[in-house]
């Protein structure tokens, strides 16, 4: 049986550490990202695709933009124009579409974003963004046939050249 000696007290390893952040949480003084308010801060609400695969025929921002407090309605096309359509992922070799461009590729994909002076105004206006979809048929969702090939095709089609 091995002898276990007590670790020197000044080291963290081998002993239970008191958490430094706990006093504020147990006193109700925790501060989360949602609690942060900065001068001039704006709020974002997203518009999601209800369809897993659909061509975006048009996006009508006018009703949303007419709402009080709404500063901007941003679509995938706007981001592409600003060279912000794709963001790198943590992998580094991959990149990700920020907002759907041309078509929605999965259900709930982000299609537009509404920026407003309050959370409520952004959410209300997001409901007024009018997206006209042309829904693709089910033949695109045959999981048992050439799933991998189709995925790669889709990725190439959407600008990925080095698909592995």
């Amino acid at each position, binding site marked *: 049986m091995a002898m276990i000696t007590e670790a020197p007290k000044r080291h963290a390893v081998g002993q*239970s550490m*008191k*958490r430094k*952040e*706990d*006093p*504020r*949480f*147990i*006193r*109700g*003084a*925790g501060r*989360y990202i949602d609690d942060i308010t900065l001068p001039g801060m704006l709020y974002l609400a997203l518009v999601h695709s209800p369809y897993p695969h659909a061509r975006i025929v048009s996006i009508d921002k006018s009703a949303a933009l007419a709402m009080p407090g709404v500063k901007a309605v941003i679509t995938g096309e706007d981001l592409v124009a600003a060279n912000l359509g794709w963001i790198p992922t943590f992998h580094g070799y991959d990149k990700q579409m920020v907002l759907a461009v041309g078509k929605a590729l999965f259900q709930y994909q982000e299609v537009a974003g509404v920026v407003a002076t309050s959370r409520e105004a952004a959410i209300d206006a997001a409901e007024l963004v009018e997206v006209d979809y042309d829904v693709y048929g089910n033949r695109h969702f045959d999981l048992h046939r050439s799933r991998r090939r189709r995925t790669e095709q889709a990725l190439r089609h959407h600008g990925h050249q080095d698909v592995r």
Partner: protein
Amino acid sequence: VCVVVLDGERAVKACTMFAVQADGHAITTVEGLAQGAKLHPLQQAFWDCHGLQCGYCTPGMLMTSLVLLKHNPDPSESEIRQALAGNLCRCTVYQNIIASVQQAAQQMSPQPVEA
């Protein structure tokens, strides 16, 4: 935040009670638990026993436990679990929360129970 204590007797979710219903009642929030610099035994126990991680559910856990211990100073493990069932911890530190409440119960009891 979230769970508040009404008249020191009842733990209520603040969002499920209208202000008019609370009219004339004493409300204790987690901010009122410590006596100045001195932590309430429940707060101390949660800290000692690692009864929290992100801390988001902690006010609710503390205030619900406060009422539990008022009515039942020596609860069993299952009684603690039952009392806290309405409070969810997404970090899932439930085990330590139970231990925290048990430690607090021990320290708050007039005659400390032999462990």
